[in-house]
């Protein structure tokens, strides 16, 4: 079951221009991985995942509107029931005009997005123009398809602005690739969809759209235990992406639902009653 590849090992000790060709070619083929020598690959993978408990969990969302693409995510990573981090970067900056979101396995998403960024850059160098969002998402989807059934966990959205305007694709570890204008991915996505779908209008300003994205993430973190931390919101426009905000969701809670201040008389009454 040896997967084809030559690209994963970078140029080895022989210093010589010959070896560097391998590296360039290699990135267009599939990286090679050590595989366990067992008859029961699936069983082994299931046990390995249960034992190492790779970090995952999330809420991410993205939608297209009049002014471009809005992308938002939380920042919590959990390993089983333990919160391994509250400050994970789930919105990955592939290049200055394209973003990828991370949902599912943290290592899987980090590695494949980094790999995608390399491929996009090589495409630019080879073709003297930027890769389209459609092309980038297809590169990723095809790569993940070749590892179908091996236990990767990737639920990502590729958002960007290319010659055809704003683009948004959903790509997952099954090799599925969907074009759309509204997606939410992760364990908190049902909650985010509720808020996002009810508040969405195509004709929103950037402020309204970013507020909608922020509130959707906040509500997902409120109800989903595997989501939390900081809600980050990014906007992708014709000139590339900008980070609009990063707010701690604990503070957002009191921002949206402030505790009514107790009046002085009320406090005196309570004290007298005791």
């Amino acid at each position, binding site marked *: 079951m040896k997967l084809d590849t030559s690209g994963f090992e970078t140029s080895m000790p022989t210093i010589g221009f010959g070896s560097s060709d391998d590296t360039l070619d290699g990135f267009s083929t599939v990286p090679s991985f050590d*595989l366990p020598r067992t008859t029961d690959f699936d069983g082994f993978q299931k046990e390995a995942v249960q034992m190492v408990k790779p970090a995952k969990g999330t809420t991410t969302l993205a939608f297209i509107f009049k002014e471009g693409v809005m992308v938002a995510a939380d920042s919590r990573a959990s390993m089983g029931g333990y919160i391994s981090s509250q400050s994970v970067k789930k919105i990955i900056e592939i290049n200055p005009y394209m973003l990828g979101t991370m949902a599912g396995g943290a*290592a899987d998403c980090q590695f494949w997005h980094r790999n995608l960024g390399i491929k996009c850059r090589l495409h630019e160098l080879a073709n003297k123009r930027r890769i389209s969002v459609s092309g980038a998402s297809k590169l990723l989807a095809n790569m993940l398809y070749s590892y179908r059934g091996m236990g990767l966990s990737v639920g990502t959205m590729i958002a960007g602005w290319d010659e055809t305007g704003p683009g948004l694709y959903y790509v997952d570890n099954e090799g599925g690739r969907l074009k759309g204008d509204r997606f939410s991915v992760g364990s908190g996505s049902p909650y985010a969809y509720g808020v996002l779908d009810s508040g969405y209008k195509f004709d929103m300003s950037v402020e309204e759209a970013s507020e909608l994205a922020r509130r959707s993430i906040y509500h997902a973190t409120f109800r989903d235990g595997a989501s939390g*931390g900081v809600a980050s919101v990014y906007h992708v426009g014709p000139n590339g992406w900008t980070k609009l905000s990063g707010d701690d969701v604990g503070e957002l809670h009191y921002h949206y639902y402030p505790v009514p201040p107790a009046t002085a008389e009320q406090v005196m009454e309570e004290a007298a009653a005791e």
Partner: protein
Amino acid sequence: MTKQHANWSPYDNNGGTCVAIAGSDYCVIAADTRMSTGYSILTRDYSKIHKLADKAVLSSSGFQADVKALQKVLKSRHLVYQHQHNKQMSCPAMAQLLSNTLYFKRFFPYYAFNVLGGLDEQGKGCVFTYDAVGSYEKVGYSAQGSGSTLIMPFLDNQLKSPSPLLLPAQDAITPLSEPEAVDLVKTVFASATERDIYTGDKLEIMILKADGIRTEVMDLRKD
């Protein structure tokens, strides 16, 4: 015919805890020295800290055979790097190398929970924390291993700084001085030893600064 299941596992857990704290011009990496298997202690004197480069020190808990194999791979890759670039690898570079090395075995993982500590190119302390398959993040402090769930909440309480994801950005420098950080590490391990059976015996602390590395050893409870 029913599927045959293996009657052995390629993995074992040797226990232990590793901690690292980054400061403005130093980095503290610490680990206990107990190596266990099941309820038995294999040895009380096993170092889990390994210097990879002048400014990068790796500490790993989990399955020590996998940790040893991982260290060998990193050491040889670092040697190649030194031959090719005529300099040592920086800590952030080593961090990404470690991430890729771990992910390379995505389908047969290294059962190693790593913390990489060192100084970045500007001389500031940096700590990188990993999961077993290579996802990593630069943080101000981290604990991994059997005592991590006991230690992390306490470090959060003492050291937690505003998240780097906040916008507008808030300053996140650990206000601790180097002696305070070393003291905190000793306190934290003493407490973890009380409640985690796999942590104890001795504590090894490595302090990295621009002028070199210093090692301290402290006794922990042996029960």
